[in-house]
Protein backbone atom coordinates (compact mmCIF):
# COMPACT_ATOMS: atom_id res chain seq x y z
CA UNK A 1 0.00 0.00 0.00
CA UNK A 2 1.31 3.44 -0.86
CA UNK A 3 0.60 7.05 0.06
CA UNK A 4 -0.89 7.52 -3.45
CA UNK A 5 -3.42 4.81 -2.67
CA UNK A 6 -4.20 6.62 0.59
CA UNK A 7 -4.89 9.82 -1.39
CA UNK A 8 -7.15 7.87 -3.75
CA UNK A 9 -8.97 6.40 -0.76
CA UNK A 10 -9.52 9.90 0.68
CA UNK A 11 -10.98 11.01 -2.65
CA UNK A 12 -13.30 7.99 -2.73
CA UNK A 13 -14.45 8.43 0.88
CA UNK A 14 -15.10 12.15 0.54
CA UNK A 15 -17.03 11.52 -2.67
CA UNK A 16 -19.17 9.08 -0.68
CA UNK A 17 -19.88 11.61 2.09
CA UNK A 18 -23.54 11.44 2.88
CA UNK A 19 -25.32 12.91 5.90
CA UNK A 20 -25.24 10.60 8.93
CA UNK A 21 -27.43 10.71 12.01
CA UNK A 22 -25.15 11.68 14.86
CA UNK A 23 -25.49 9.44 17.90
CA UNK A 24 -26.86 11.01 21.06
CA UNK A 25 -24.55 11.10 24.08
CA UNK A 26 -23.79 7.69 25.61
CA UNK A 27 -25.56 8.67 28.83
CA UNK A 28 -28.74 9.67 26.99
CA UNK A 29 -28.69 6.43 25.00
CA UNK A 30 -28.07 4.39 28.17
CA UNK A 31 -31.01 6.07 29.93
CA UNK A 32 -33.26 5.31 26.94
CA UNK A 33 -32.11 1.68 26.92
CA UNK A 34 -32.59 1.31 30.67
CA UNK A 35 -36.08 2.80 30.42
CA UNK A 36 -36.93 0.15 27.83
CA UNK A 37 -35.49 -2.65 29.97
CA UNK A 38 -37.34 -1.34 33.05
CA UNK A 39 -40.60 -1.38 31.12
CA UNK A 40 -40.06 -5.01 30.10
CA UNK A 41 -39.19 -5.93 33.70
CA UNK A 42 -42.17 -4.09 35.13
CA UNK A 43 -44.56 -5.81 32.73
CA UNK A 44 -43.06 -9.20 33.69
CA UNK A 45 -43.43 -8.45 37.41
CA UNK A 46 -47.07 -7.40 36.95
CA UNK A 47 -48.07 -10.23 34.62
CA UNK A 48 -46.11 -13.23 35.89
CA UNK A 49 -47.40 -14.99 39.03
CA UNK A 50 -45.59 -14.19 42.28
CA UNK A 51 -46.57 -14.03 45.94
CA UNK A 52 -44.93 -10.73 46.79
CA UNK A 53 -41.67 -12.42 47.75
CA UNK A 54 -40.03 -9.18 48.88
CA UNK A 55 -42.62 -8.82 51.66
CA UNK A 56 -42.14 -12.49 52.59
CA UNK A 57 -38.40 -12.04 52.88
CA UNK A 58 -38.72 -8.70 54.69
CA UNK A 59 -41.10 -10.27 57.20
CA UNK A 60 -38.34 -12.70 58.10
CA UNK A 61 -36.25 -9.80 59.31
CA UNK A 62 -33.91 -9.88 56.31
CA UNK A 63 -33.52 -6.19 55.77
CA UNK A 64 -30.32 -6.69 53.84
CA UNK A 65 -32.58 -7.99 51.07
CA UNK A 66 -33.35 -4.34 50.25
CA UNK A 67 -29.64 -3.52 50.14
CA UNK A 68 -28.96 -6.55 47.95
CA UNK A 69 -31.69 -5.40 45.62
CA UNK A 70 -30.37 -1.83 45.45
CA UNK A 71 -26.78 -2.99 44.88
CA UNK A 72 -27.80 -5.41 42.11
CA UNK A 73 -29.81 -2.66 40.43
CA UNK A 74 -26.93 -0.20 40.76
CA UNK A 75 -24.40 -2.71 39.36
CA UNK A 76 -26.69 -3.41 36.39
CA UNK A 77 -27.39 0.25 35.67
CA UNK A 78 -23.74 1.30 35.95
CA UNK A 79 -22.59 -1.60 33.75
CA UNK A 80 -25.09 -0.64 31.04
CA UNK A 81 -24.08 3.05 31.24
CA UNK A 82 -20.40 2.04 31.06
CA UNK A 83 -21.07 -0.22 28.04
CA UNK A 84 -22.54 2.71 26.09
CA UNK A 85 -19.48 4.83 26.94
CA UNK A 86 -16.80 2.29 26.01
CA UNK A 87 -18.61 1.61 22.72
CA UNK A 88 -17.53 5.10 21.56
CA UNK A 89 -13.90 5.46 20.40
CA UNK A 90 -11.65 7.45 22.72
CA UNK A 91 -13.75 7.28 25.86
CA UNK A 92 -11.94 6.58 29.11
CA UNK A 93 -11.09 2.95 29.90
CA UNK A 94 -11.90 3.91 33.48
CA UNK A 95 -15.52 3.12 32.62
CA UNK A 96 -14.56 -0.55 32.80
CA UNK A 97 -14.16 -0.23 36.58
CA UNK A 98 -17.29 1.83 37.23
CA UNK A 99 -19.70 -1.07 38.02
CA UNK A 100 -17.17 -2.96 40.17
CA UNK A 101 -17.84 -1.27 43.56
CA UNK A 102 -21.60 -1.86 43.18
CA UNK A 103 -20.91 -5.45 42.13
CA UNK A 104 -18.74 -5.95 45.21
CA UNK A 105 -21.45 -4.45 47.43
CA UNK A 106 -24.09 -6.70 45.88
CA UNK A 107 -22.02 -9.86 46.38
CA UNK A 108 -21.07 -8.67 49.87
CA UNK A 109 -24.67 -8.12 50.96
CA UNK A 110 -25.72 -11.42 49.40
CA UNK A 111 -22.90 -13.21 51.22
CA UNK A 112 -23.92 -11.57 54.47
CA UNK A 113 -27.49 -12.78 53.92
CA UNK A 114 -26.20 -16.29 53.29
CA UNK A 115 -24.14 -16.15 56.47
CA UNK A 116 -27.14 -15.07 58.56
CA UNK A 117 -29.25 -17.78 56.96
CA UNK A 118 -26.59 -20.35 57.80
CA UNK A 119 -26.39 -19.12 61.42
CA UNK A 120 -30.19 -19.26 61.76
CA UNK A 121 -30.95 -22.50 59.92
CA UNK A 122 -27.78 -24.50 60.47
CA UNK A 123 -26.60 -26.95 57.82
CA UNK A 124 -29.71 -26.38 55.68
CA UNK A 125 -28.02 -23.10 54.77
CA UNK A 126 -25.77 -25.13 52.45
CA UNK A 127 -28.66 -26.69 50.52
CA UNK A 128 -29.10 -26.06 46.83
CA UNK A 129 -32.73 -24.95 47.21
CA UNK A 130 -34.26 -23.55 44.01
CA UNK A 131 -30.94 -22.61 42.51
CA UNK A 132 -31.49 -24.28 39.17
CA UNK A 133 -34.71 -22.30 38.71
CA UNK A 134 -32.74 -19.13 39.50
CA UNK A 135 -30.04 -20.15 37.01
CA UNK A 136 -32.65 -20.69 34.29
CA UNK A 137 -34.36 -17.38 35.17
CA UNK A 138 -31.15 -15.33 34.97
CA UNK A 139 -30.14 -16.90 31.65
CA UNK A 140 -33.63 -16.58 30.10
CA UNK A 141 -34.18 -13.01 31.35
CA UNK A 142 -30.71 -12.03 30.12
CA UNK A 143 -31.54 -13.32 26.66
CA UNK A 144 -34.81 -11.37 26.61
CA UNK A 145 -33.12 -8.16 27.81
CA UNK A 146 -29.86 -8.75 25.97
CA UNK A 147 -31.06 -8.64 22.38
CA UNK A 148 -32.58 -5.12 22.49
CA UNK A 149 -29.59 -3.86 24.47
CA UNK A 150 -27.15 -5.36 21.94
CA UNK A 151 -29.11 -3.76 19.11
CA UNK A 152 -28.81 -0.32 20.73
CA UNK A 153 -25.11 -0.82 21.47
CA UNK A 154 -24.44 -2.00 17.91
CA UNK A 155 -25.48 1.39 16.54
CA UNK A 156 -22.05 2.68 17.61
CA UNK A 157 -20.32 -0.16 15.66
CA UNK A 158 -17.79 -0.43 18.53
CA UNK A 159 -14.22 -0.76 17.27
CA UNK A 160 -13.28 -2.93 20.27
CA UNK A 161 -16.37 -5.04 20.99
CA UNK A 162 -15.03 -7.21 23.84
CA UNK A 163 -15.27 -4.69 26.73
CA UNK A 164 -18.64 -3.56 25.41
CA UNK A 165 -19.89 -7.16 25.41
CA UNK A 166 -18.50 -7.87 28.89
CA UNK A 167 -20.09 -4.74 30.39
CA UNK A 168 -23.35 -5.29 28.52
CA UNK A 169 -23.41 -8.93 29.67
CA UNK A 170 -22.74 -7.92 33.26
CA UNK A 171 -25.43 -5.25 33.03
CA UNK A 172 -28.20 -7.52 31.80
CA UNK A 173 -27.17 -10.35 34.14
CA UNK A 174 -27.24 -8.01 37.15
CA UNK A 175 -30.59 -6.56 36.07
CA UNK A 176 -31.95 -10.09 35.56
CA UNK A 177 -30.76 -10.99 39.07
CA UNK A 178 -32.51 -7.84 40.31
CA UNK A 179 -35.78 -8.86 38.63
CA UNK A 180 -35.29 -12.38 40.00
CA UNK A 181 -35.73 -11.02 43.53
CA UNK A 182 -39.37 -10.28 42.71
CA UNK A 183 -39.92 -14.02 42.15
CA UNK A 184 -37.63 -15.32 44.88
CA UNK A 185 -39.53 -15.87 48.16
CA UNK A 186 -36.59 -17.34 50.08
CA UNK A 187 -33.22 -16.26 51.35
CA UNK A 188 -30.27 -17.45 49.31
CA UNK A 189 -27.82 -20.01 50.62
CA UNK A 190 -24.14 -19.96 49.74
CA UNK A 191 -24.79 -22.55 47.05
CA UNK A 192 -27.65 -20.44 45.66
CA UNK A 193 -25.32 -17.45 45.59
CA UNK A 194 -22.64 -19.48 43.84
CA UNK A 195 -25.17 -20.55 41.21
CA UNK A 196 -26.23 -16.90 40.72
CA UNK A 197 -22.59 -15.91 40.21
CA UNK A 198 -22.07 -18.80 37.76
CA UNK A 199 -25.19 -17.73 35.85
CA UNK A 200 -23.81 -14.18 35.59
CA UNK A 201 -20.50 -15.59 34.39
CA UNK A 202 -22.29 -17.67 31.75
CA UNK A 203 -24.18 -14.60 30.50
CA UNK A 204 -20.95 -12.58 30.26
CA UNK A 205 -19.26 -15.49 28.47
CA UNK A 206 -22.11 -15.80 25.98
CA UNK A 207 -22.15 -12.05 25.40
CA UNK A 208 -18.39 -12.14 24.71
CA UNK A 209 -18.78 -15.10 22.39
CA UNK A 210 -21.56 -13.44 20.39
CA UNK A 211 -19.98 -9.98 20.35
CA UNK A 212 -19.23 -9.87 16.62
CA UNK A 213 -22.62 -10.89 15.20
CA UNK A 214 -24.48 -8.94 17.90
CA UNK A 215 -22.46 -5.71 18.04
CA UNK A 216 -21.36 -5.59 14.37
CA UNK A 217 -18.02 -3.90 15.15
CA UNK A 218 -16.35 -1.57 12.63
Amino acid sequence: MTAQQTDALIDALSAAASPVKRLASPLARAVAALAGLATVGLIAILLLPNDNPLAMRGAGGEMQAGLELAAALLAGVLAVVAAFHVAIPGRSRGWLAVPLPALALWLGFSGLGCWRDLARNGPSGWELGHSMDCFAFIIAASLVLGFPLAWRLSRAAPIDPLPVAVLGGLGIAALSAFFLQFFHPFAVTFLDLAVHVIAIGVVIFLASLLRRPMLRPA
Partner: protein
Amino acid sequence: MASGDTNEESWGDLLAAAQRGDGVAYRRFLIAVTPFLRALARRRIHADEVVEDVVQETLLTVHRVRHTYEHGRAVEPWLAAIVSRRSIDALRKSSRTSAREVHNPLAYETFAEPSANTIEAGESAKELARLMGGLPPRQKEALELTKLKELSLEEASAESGQSVASLKVNVHRAIKRMRIEIGKDLFE
Protein backbone atom coordinates in the same frame (compact mmCIF):
# COMPACT_ATOMS: atom_id res chain seq x y z
CA MET B 1 -3.43 22.23 10.95
CA ALA B 2 -4.06 21.20 14.51
CA SER B 3 -7.40 20.80 16.15
CA GLY B 4 -6.87 23.85 18.34
CA ASP B 5 -6.09 26.30 15.51
CA THR B 6 -8.30 29.35 15.51
CA ASN B 7 -7.46 30.73 12.03
CA GLU B 8 -8.83 27.72 10.27
CA GLU B 9 -11.72 25.47 11.01
CA SER B 10 -10.87 22.94 13.68
CA TRP B 11 -10.91 19.22 12.98
CA GLY B 12 -14.05 18.98 15.11
CA ASP B 13 -15.87 21.56 12.97
CA LEU B 14 -14.80 19.84 9.75
CA LEU B 15 -15.94 16.45 11.04
CA ALA B 16 -19.23 17.90 12.21
CA ALA B 17 -19.72 19.36 8.72
CA ALA B 18 -18.86 15.95 7.25
CA GLN B 19 -21.55 14.39 9.42
CA ARG B 20 -24.01 16.74 7.71
CA GLY B 21 -22.85 15.43 4.33
CA ASP B 22 -20.39 18.20 3.36
CA GLY B 23 -17.97 16.32 1.08
CA VAL B 24 -15.52 19.22 0.76
CA ALA B 25 -15.18 19.57 4.54
CA TYR B 26 -14.85 15.81 4.83
CA ARG B 27 -12.03 15.74 2.29
CA ARG B 28 -10.23 18.57 4.11
CA PHE B 29 -10.68 16.72 7.39
CA LEU B 30 -9.30 13.44 6.04
CA ILE B 31 -6.32 15.15 4.40
CA ALA B 32 -5.59 17.14 7.56
CA VAL B 33 -5.70 14.16 9.92
CA THR B 34 -3.76 11.68 7.75
CA PRO B 35 -0.26 12.82 8.90
CA PHE B 36 -1.48 12.60 12.51
CA LEU B 37 -2.77 9.06 11.89
CA ARG B 38 0.50 8.09 10.19
CA ALA B 39 2.54 9.42 13.12
CA LEU B 40 0.41 7.49 15.62
CA ALA B 41 0.68 4.29 13.57
CA ARG B 42 4.49 4.66 13.37
CA ARG B 43 4.69 4.64 17.16
CA ARG B 44 3.47 1.05 17.15
CA ILE B 45 4.60 -0.28 13.77
CA HIS B 46 7.97 0.03 12.05
CA ALA B 47 7.30 -1.38 8.57
CA ASP B 48 6.26 1.50 6.27
CA GLU B 49 3.95 -0.69 4.18
CA VAL B 50 2.09 -1.86 7.26
CA VAL B 51 1.89 1.73 8.56
CA GLU B 52 0.18 2.79 5.33
CA ASP B 53 -2.17 -0.22 5.60
CA VAL B 54 -3.09 0.88 9.13
CA VAL B 55 -3.66 4.48 7.96
CA GLN B 56 -6.00 3.26 5.22
CA GLU B 57 -7.86 0.88 7.54
CA THR B 58 -8.21 3.76 10.00
CA LEU B 59 -9.64 6.05 7.31
CA LEU B 60 -12.17 3.36 6.39
CA THR B 61 -13.11 2.94 10.07
CA VAL B 62 -13.42 6.71 10.52
CA HIS B 63 -15.85 6.68 7.60
CA ARG B 64 -17.85 3.86 9.17
CA VAL B 65 -18.06 5.37 12.68
CA ARG B 66 -18.06 9.09 11.88
CA HIS B 67 -21.58 9.28 13.34
CA THR B 68 -20.16 8.48 16.82
CA TYR B 69 -18.14 11.70 17.06
CA GLU B 70 -19.78 14.15 19.46
CA HIS B 71 -19.24 17.72 18.31
CA GLY B 72 -17.50 19.79 20.96
CA ARG B 73 -15.31 16.97 22.20
CA ALA B 74 -11.64 16.63 21.21
CA VAL B 75 -11.13 14.72 17.96
CA GLU B 76 -7.61 13.47 18.76
CA PRO B 77 -8.57 10.84 21.40
CA TRP B 78 -11.35 9.63 19.09
CA LEU B 79 -8.88 9.21 16.22
CA ALA B 80 -6.13 7.80 18.45
CA ALA B 81 -8.43 5.06 19.71
CA ILE B 82 -9.24 4.03 16.14
CA VAL B 83 -5.58 4.03 15.06
CA SER B 84 -4.65 2.04 18.14
CA ARG B 85 -7.30 -0.59 17.38
CA ARG B 86 -6.34 -0.92 13.73
CA SER B 87 -2.64 -1.13 14.68
CA ILE B 88 -3.38 -3.98 17.08
CA ASP B 89 -5.35 -5.74 14.32
CA ALA B 90 -2.43 -5.31 11.91
CA LEU B 91 0.09 -6.65 14.43
CA ARG B 92 -2.10 -9.67 15.15
CA LYS B 93 -2.52 -10.34 11.45
CA SER B 94 1.20 -10.01 10.91
CA SER B 95 2.06 -12.41 13.75
CA ARG B 96 -0.50 -14.95 12.44
CA THR B 97 0.99 -14.71 8.95
CA SER B 98 4.59 -15.04 10.10
CA ALA B 99 3.65 -18.09 12.20
CA ARG B 100 2.23 -19.91 9.15
CA GLU B 101 4.26 -18.70 6.19
CA VAL B 102 7.90 -18.44 5.18
CA HIS B 103 8.68 -15.21 3.37
CA ASN B 104 11.04 -15.76 0.44
CA PRO B 105 11.61 -12.43 -1.38
CA LEU B 106 13.38 -14.17 -4.31
CA ALA B 107 10.22 -16.18 -4.99
CA TYR B 108 8.59 -13.04 -6.44
CA GLU B 109 11.30 -12.53 -9.04
CA THR B 110 9.74 -14.45 -11.91
CA PHE B 111 8.67 -13.25 -15.33
CA ALA B 112 5.64 -13.85 -17.51
CA GLU B 113 7.78 -15.18 -20.36
CA PRO B 114 8.91 -18.73 -19.31
CA SER B 115 12.23 -18.49 -21.15
CA ALA B 116 13.18 -15.46 -19.02
CA ASN B 117 13.07 -17.67 -15.93
CA THR B 118 15.59 -20.25 -17.15
CA ILE B 119 18.36 -19.17 -14.77
CA GLU B 120 16.02 -19.11 -11.76
CA ALA B 121 14.53 -22.45 -12.80
CA GLY B 122 18.00 -23.98 -12.91
CA GLU B 123 18.82 -22.64 -9.46
CA SER B 124 15.47 -23.87 -8.13
CA ALA B 125 16.15 -27.34 -9.51
CA LYS B 126 19.57 -27.41 -7.84
CA GLU B 127 18.06 -26.21 -4.59
CA LEU B 128 15.33 -28.85 -4.79
CA ALA B 129 17.89 -31.56 -5.46
CA ARG B 130 19.93 -30.40 -2.47
CA LEU B 131 16.88 -30.42 -0.19
CA MET B 132 15.77 -33.84 -1.43
CA GLY B 133 19.25 -35.18 -0.93
CA GLY B 134 18.87 -34.53 2.78
CA LEU B 135 15.69 -36.61 3.08
CA PRO B 136 15.56 -40.22 4.37
CA PRO B 137 15.39 -42.68 1.41
CA ARG B 138 11.72 -43.66 1.80
CA GLN B 139 10.57 -40.03 2.11
CA LYS B 140 12.65 -39.08 -0.92
CA GLU B 141 11.24 -42.00 -2.93
CA ALA B 142 7.66 -41.10 -1.95
CA LEU B 143 8.17 -37.47 -2.98
CA GLU B 144 9.84 -38.37 -6.31
CA LEU B 145 7.13 -40.79 -7.35
CA THR B 146 4.07 -38.76 -6.31
CA LYS B 147 5.21 -35.16 -6.87
CA LEU B 148 7.94 -35.25 -9.53
CA LYS B 149 6.83 -38.23 -11.63
CA GLU B 150 3.22 -37.37 -10.73
CA LEU B 151 2.17 -41.02 -10.34
CA SER B 152 -1.07 -41.81 -8.56
CA LEU B 153 -0.76 -43.17 -5.03
CA GLU B 154 -1.68 -46.68 -6.27
CA GLU B 155 0.94 -46.57 -9.04
CA ALA B 156 3.58 -45.21 -6.65
CA SER B 157 2.68 -47.93 -4.17
CA ALA B 158 3.07 -50.64 -6.83
CA GLU B 159 6.45 -49.26 -7.93
CA SER B 160 7.94 -48.63 -4.49
CA GLY B 161 6.36 -51.39 -2.43
CA GLN B 162 5.25 -48.82 0.17
CA SER B 163 1.59 -48.89 1.19
CA VAL B 164 -0.66 -45.97 0.17
CA ALA B 165 -0.91 -44.83 3.80
CA SER B 166 2.85 -45.01 4.19
CA LEU B 167 3.34 -42.94 1.01
CA LYS B 168 0.99 -40.23 2.30
CA VAL B 169 2.81 -40.05 5.63
CA ASN B 170 6.24 -39.96 3.98
CA VAL B 171 5.23 -37.21 1.52
CA HIS B 172 3.81 -35.14 4.37
CA ARG B 173 6.96 -35.59 6.47
CA ALA B 174 9.23 -34.83 3.53
CA ILE B 175 7.46 -31.56 2.73
CA LYS B 176 7.47 -30.55 6.37
CA ARG B 177 11.18 -31.28 6.65
CA MET B 178 11.99 -29.33 3.47
CA ARG B 179 9.90 -26.38 4.63
CA ILE B 180 11.89 -26.23 7.86
CA GLU B 181 15.16 -26.38 5.88
CA ILE B 182 14.03 -23.51 3.61
CA GLY B 183 13.09 -21.46 6.68
CA LYS B 184 16.54 -22.09 8.21
CA ASP B 185 18.29 -21.00 5.00
CA LEU B 186 16.32 -17.75 4.85
CA PHE B 187 16.93 -16.75 8.42
CA GLU B 188 20.60 -17.76 8.66
